[in-house]
């Protein structure tokens, strides 16, 4: 983990250089946002739907990255929080007739509590042991969702079909385009919050715990609180993503959230770049599109092709796509 960690605290630089870098950064983000707003008008509804899933995944990956990339805790069970978020949204809409946009913050809140509670005992576990504990959660989740006592809410194995939200009248957007912009708004909000969180005191405390837990404690960081809060916030992000994803897919079922989803999220975080905010977006593109590309190359062994892609990415970009981009940019500047 240490080798791939990105330097978070910037080397001290003259104020002018720092401001220039900041401006460049802001311009970059603005260009990206404009592109994201234009894109759904250039491609068909099916592609817009896929991009909506990319946006949802990017929120989940940012959440997992806080935990794994910044705080150094490995979770192999974040698919479970994705499922909780998805089911919270689905149940609220299906059983309580709640409008879709209200379900997202509630899904996030439910996951925050679930993540915090799970994070408390998990604190005693370090590294691989925590990975196994979360793995247990991920493996158990599909069966918990099928359990008889929950069936009246979850619909059991049949799952829940969600009605697709209509675009507000007068905007002239298709349902898919509207859902895309709705999700994009959440991405902007969540990334803004994440950026503030990770660049500030809390972010530094998280990284300190990852790199030097003893030193962090000595400096007055409340390790256990920060760790379980990180777990909770990470789960919140993943839950919001799950809710957005389920509204886009219009269907939740236990089989949608198997352990492979959790592994896929870890893959996305690592491919995108550990401890990198933009990495979440690269990772989301990878987990959304590479399986399709692999399927197109070979019907007989799509996962073998996927494996080759994975190896190629890891070999060519050992610090993830974000790290690769960072190196490229540094080279260009020179």
């Amino acid at each position, binding site marked *: 983990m240490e080798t791939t960690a990105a330097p978070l605290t910037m080397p001290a630089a003259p104020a002018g250089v720092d401001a220039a870098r900041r401006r460049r950064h802001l311009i970059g983000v603005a260009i990206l946002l404009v592109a994201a707003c234009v894109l759904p008008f250039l491609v*068909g*509804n*099916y*592609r817009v*739907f*896929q991009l909506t*899933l990319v946006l949802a995944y990017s929120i989940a990956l940012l959440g997992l990255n806080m935990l794994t990339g910044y705080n150094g805790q490995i979770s192999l069970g974040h698919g479970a929080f994705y499922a909780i978020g998805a089911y919270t949204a689905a149940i609220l809409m299906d059983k309580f007739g709640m409008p879709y946009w209200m379900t997202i913050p509630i899904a996030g809140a439910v996951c925050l509590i679930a993540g915090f509670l799970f994070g408390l005992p998990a604190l005693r576990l370090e590294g691989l042991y925590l990975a196994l504990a979360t793995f247990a959660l991920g*493996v158990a989740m*599909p*069966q918990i969702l*099928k359990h008889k006592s929950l069936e009246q809410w979850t619909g059991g*194995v*049949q*799952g829940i*079909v969600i009605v697709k939200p209509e675009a507000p009248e007068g905007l002239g957007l298709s349902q898919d385009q509207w859902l895309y912009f709705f999700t994009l708004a959440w991405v902007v909000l969540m990334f803004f919050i994440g950026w503030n969180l990770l660049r500030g005191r809390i972010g530094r405390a998280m990284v300190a715990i990852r790199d030097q837990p003893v030193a962090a404690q000595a400096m007055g960081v409340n390790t256990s609180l920060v760790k379980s809060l990180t777990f909770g916030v990470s789960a919140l992000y993943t839950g919001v993503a799950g809710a957005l*994803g389920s509204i886009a*897919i*219009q*269907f939740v*079922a236990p*089989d*949608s959230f*198997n*352990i*492979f989803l959790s592994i896929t999220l870890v893959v996305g975080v690592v491919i995108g770049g550990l401890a990198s905010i933009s990495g979440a977006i690269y990772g989301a593109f990878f987990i959304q599109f590479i*399986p399709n590309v692999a*399927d197109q190359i070979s*019907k*007989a062994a*799509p*996962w073998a092709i996927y494996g080759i892609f994975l190896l190629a990415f890891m070999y060519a970009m050992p610090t993830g796509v974000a790290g690769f981009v960072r190196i490229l940019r540094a080279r260009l500047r020179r």
Partner: protein
Amino acid sequence: MTIVPLRPLRWLAASAALAVASLSPNVFAQAAKYGPGASATEIKLGQTMPYSGPASAYGTIGKLHQAYFKMINDNGGINGRKVNLISLDDGYSPPKTVEQVRRLVEQDEVLALFQTLGTPPNSAIHKYVNGKKVPHLLLATGATKWGDPKNFPWTMGFNLSYQSEGEIYAKWLLKTKPDAKVAILYQNDDYGKDVLKGVKDGLGAAGAKMIVKEATYEVTDPTVDSQIIALQGSGADTFINITTPKFGAQAVRKAWDSGWKPLHIINNVSASVGSVLIPAGLDKSVGLVTVQYYKDPNDPQWKDDPAMLEWRAFMGRYYKEGDPKDASNLYAYITAQTMVQILKQCGNDLTRENVMKQAASLKNFKSALLLPGMSMNTSPTDFFPIQQAQLAKFTGQLWQGFGDVISTGAQP
């Protein structure tokens, strides 16, 4: 001089007029109508298949379909049009199915979906395809809910419905072994519960007394050994085994190894000799009972059956890598034949509406690979193509049919 060059022209004009006059009624009669995915040269179909993931054993069905349509195309296609089947992997994961089916409908613009496989994947797209009015035909699943023309007029299943199958077992038990003590193992999902409902409905009031133990497993479980031991411990003398192939093989094996010798009914989903009974051990499978509605490729009584010879020739020529022992390959052949029949019936009206209309007007369609005496019938109120079956017992080499072909009534 001026007349001479006019003459041939006039002749030409006259003959042209004549030709138009004689052709025009024909031209109007044949004016072809095309919906999305159809043209004068091509019919585009789409499907999702589990080429990867827990149900990948069924991937062979999609591969056979592609081979079958290649044969059809080599022989000139359907009414001169080539069939282009776009078959995509969904890994048996519902969100992936939604994504792939949206691609098929919105990007590839297929005329119809054909044999999308599995109950959870089809559940995920059920509302979507009906909203989009895309024919969703001959689904490779036996769930009873696919035959609901009133609420889902664009969806039609294929298999003998799971409930009908369960009912057939129950009726047979009531008749031949009314004092049976029944243990049931079922997959904890739509499919397992559907068969179970058929069994319970079929047993009726007697069921409460006859069923002594039920156990379930998850499709993600590694084995069903502990469930078999629990069922055996209940003292049951009859075992209804509602499992998919991998677990079917495990259950047959474990029931034998543990010394339990019940009357063992195994559902049709796991009745394949190649993928279930051979892995379980043929000697351990003697006496198993199931239902059948198509011929068993391993059954010597069909060795020289013309339909079987035709199928084998096809397998040798177009699908060499396929296993000729695997009944899934025969099943897939029948479903492809049925799809071709529907498309033939469509004639030159290849709109989605007409495809659905023709799918709901199969009249006495006989695939020679179905058991003798069986045929397929559908109507605007009956979306169950297969409603007949026969019980069969495993002899150690093959499934031997016994009793008559049993018909079940139209489902609600």
